[in-house]
């Protein structure tokens, strides 16, 4: 049953190779290796430090692994529930499979395998540098990969079975399409809650010496497992036991036997509930919607744009707010922004007697890069998929007298206007919190406006260069190769702008330091003009490329 998918993946890889996909592979490999190296490097340093700490070093290392695995469990559970919904209830091959004389258990195992693969590959890749760091620091030896893989595999199976079972029950209660909406809101709401909670407890305070006053209590906490029933603890025990020289087989037995039993129980539940769940999954989602506000107030507001552009903008906004998988990402975005502002507020800049003017100015300046990065991530989520999402309806747009320029115009401004509001809000708020000078405020606002215009254009341009017309879920589009290239291009732009602008900002700080009035020199003007030139080029060129590419699309 999985053969068609496997063969499709192979053919796609072959086609990619044939159409010069080697460059794509190299970029992915370089980014992947850099990420692995970063995770490995950080963990290696931490573990080597732990190893040097007497008595509690190994305990700390074990606790760290257990915490990492525990976070994996929660991520895996959520992603399995969401993936199972697609693979068990919404996938296109299900009509064929369910109508064929296929054994229920085989169907269950095939779909469970598919769910496991789709939901766990990222966690599995993430685990590689983690286990490698443990192996290197604690001299795991040649057999360590076997122990790690032997304990990690059943660890991945358990959340897949539990997630699929949870989905099965949910679908029996709600229609599948409603469940998807519900789950995406719950998942993103939960993620936003965790991020906010984690930030608000201010983990940086733990690094202060007064945090370690009660060592005995600390050791007690370290020794106690999170829960002896959690598979993450079993993996920790198996791995740390092996690395400590005392191999404990019980956790491995527990992992494999529990995974085996879970699959059997899962298959039984599947046999009982799948058919009714699948039937319910065929029901549609919501039917009636309110459309008055759109055509009423917004229609009047956009009247000067003319019929075609106005209807296009209204259509784009309606589709965005009616697709739960799209707008629910705003919850996460809001949480990240709160954390961002909280971090700026929490910076220890105003602790001393004197307000450190240079530090504030430098933070305010570098904040531009960070804000730019936040805007790029948002553009990747919301603007990058814009062209791909039109793919299936391109027959209509291309056969109508709509100018493709108007299509691009609408896509660009529908994405850019909210992004611009956000960019200005972030920059002005952070500069107000930082009590930045008027000069820094002006530089910040001017630059962020230019950067936002360029980032939107880049997102649209790369979205048109690397379209994903077959993807039904908009949330998956930014994680494609094109999304990665867009992020890399944007980071390069941000770096370039910051490097050029550092010249006038340095002059400004220098003048302040020497307590002299700021003289606008030719160099400063050239630097600002260069920034304008770079940003305008990064706006115009991607939009032109996008237009040409859209004109060439064939459906």
């Amino acid at each position, binding site marked *: 049953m999985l053969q068609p998918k496997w063969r499709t993946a192979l053919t796609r890889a072959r086609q990619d190779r044939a159409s010069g996909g080697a460059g794509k592979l190299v970029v992915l490999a370089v980014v992947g290796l850099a990420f692995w190296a970063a995770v490995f490097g950080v963990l290696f340093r931490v573990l080597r430090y732990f190893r040097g700490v007497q008595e509690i070093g190994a305990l700390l290392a074990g606790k760290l692994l257990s915490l990492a695995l525990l976070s994996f469990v929660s991520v895996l559970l959520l992603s399995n529930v969401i993936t199972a919904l697609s693979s068990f209830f919404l996938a296109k091959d299900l009509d064929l499979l369910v109508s064929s004389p296929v054994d229920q258990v085989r169907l269950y195992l095939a779909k469970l395998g598919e769910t496991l693969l789709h939901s766990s590959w990222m966690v599995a890749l993430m685990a590689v540098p983690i286990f490698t760091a443990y192996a290197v620091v604690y001299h795991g030896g040649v057999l360590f990969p076997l122990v790690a893989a032997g304990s990690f595999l059943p660890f991945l199976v358990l959340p897949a079975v539990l997630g699929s079972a949870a989905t099965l029950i949910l679908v029996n209660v709600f229609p599948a399409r409603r469940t998807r909406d519900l789950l995406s809101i719950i998942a993103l709401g939960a993620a936003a809650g965790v991020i906010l909670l984690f930030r608000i407890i201010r983990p940086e305070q733990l690094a202060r010496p007064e945090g370690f006053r009660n060592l005995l209590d600390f050791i007690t906490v370290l020794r106690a497992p999170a829960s002896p029933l959690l598979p993450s603890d079993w993996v920790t025990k198996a791995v740390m036991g092996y690395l400590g020289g005392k191999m404990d087989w019980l956790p491995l037995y527990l992992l494999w036997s529990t995974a085996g039993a879970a699959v059997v129980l899962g298959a039984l539940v599947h046999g009982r509930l799948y058919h009714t769940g699948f039937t319910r999954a065929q029901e549609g989602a919501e039917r009636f919607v309110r459309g008055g506000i759109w055509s009423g107030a917004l229609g009047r507001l956009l009247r000067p744009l003319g019929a075609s552009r106005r209807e296009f903008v209204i259509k784009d906004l*309606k589709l965005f707010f009616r697709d739960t998988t799209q707008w629910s990402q705003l919850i996460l975005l809001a949480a990240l922004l709160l954390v961002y502002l909280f971090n700026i507020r929490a910076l220890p800049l105003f602790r001393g007697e004197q307000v450190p003017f240079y530090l504030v100015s430098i933070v305010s300046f570098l904040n531009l890069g960070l804000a730019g990065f936040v805007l790029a991530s948002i553009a990747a989520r919301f603007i990058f998929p814009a062209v791909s999402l039109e793919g*299936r309806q391109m027959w*209509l747009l*291309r056969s109508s007298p709509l100018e493709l320029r108007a299509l691009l115009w609408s896509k660009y401004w529908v994405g850019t206007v909210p992004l611009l509001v956000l960019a200005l809000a972030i920059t002005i708020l952070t500069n107000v919190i930082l009590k930045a000078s008027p000069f820094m405020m002006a530089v910040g606002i001017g630059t962020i406006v230019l950067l936002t215009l360029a980032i939107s254009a880049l997102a649209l341009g790369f979205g048109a260069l690397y379209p994903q017309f077959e993807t039904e879920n908009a949330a998956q589009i930014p994680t494609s190769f094109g999304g990665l290239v867009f992020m890399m291009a944007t980071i390069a732009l941000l770096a370039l702008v910051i490097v050029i602008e550092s010249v006038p900002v340095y002059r400004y700080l220098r003048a302040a330091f020497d307590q002299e009035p700021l003289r606008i020199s030719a160099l400063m003007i050239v630097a600002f003009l260069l920034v304008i030139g770079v940003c305008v080029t990064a706006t115009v060129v991607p939009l032109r490329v996008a237009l040409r590419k859209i004109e060439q699309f064939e459906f």
Partner: protein
Amino acid sequence: MIKLEGLTKDYGSFRAVDDVTLHVPKGALYGFLGPNGAGKTTTLRMIAGILRPTAGRVLIGDDDVIRQPMAAKARLGFIPDRPFVYEKLTGAEFLRFVAGLYGQDGQLVERRIDELLDVFELSSWKNELVESYSHGMRQKLIISSALIHRPEVIVVDEPMVGLDPRAARLLKDLFKGFVGRGGTVLMSTHTLEIAEALCDRIAIIQGGKIVAAGTMAELRAQTASGNIGLEDLFLRLTGGVEAKELAAVLEGGR
């Protein structure tokens, strides 16, 4: 009204449409027939301006689809074979959006929307999301969208797929009325009875080339057939061998 001159389309080394020249006069209901993979859909999509021809040109009236796309497309209503529409719009919103693409809005459009939804018996679904529509209802909605701007020419790919007998009959009457008022229809279909009953002229395409074109009488004369029906003519022109083979396979399966 529609003129195809040396129209050619290559996909890599594969030639899907090969030097097709065809004239569909104003006020005609022209059938475009051919076996699967013959190049019908590719030709129709080039006429609608969705695909760019490798060579040749398409004229709608006097307007070239590539050189004067806006003017050419404004005259055209295209009905594709696969009804992909925006799932999260309601039927009325979709029609309003399409009217907007043609630069039309206001009370006239609202009246036209009500009129079309009424004709296709979709009025009670007017404010429901398209995602809850059946295949046939989507097809009706797309047909409505092709008519919303009052086109002069309709290019339609497999219009009867998914339609119930009542809607199919309605569509036939609608096309007849449309050409009766001076409109032009180019229609691809596999339902030969419909083509024979409705179409004034018929073109048959195979392997990307037009193998015959004209009225039924002209087609019979071209193939030197007697008084045979369109089905036999079609099989003779496109190779009845395959049909016989298919029948043999089906017989063998029993």
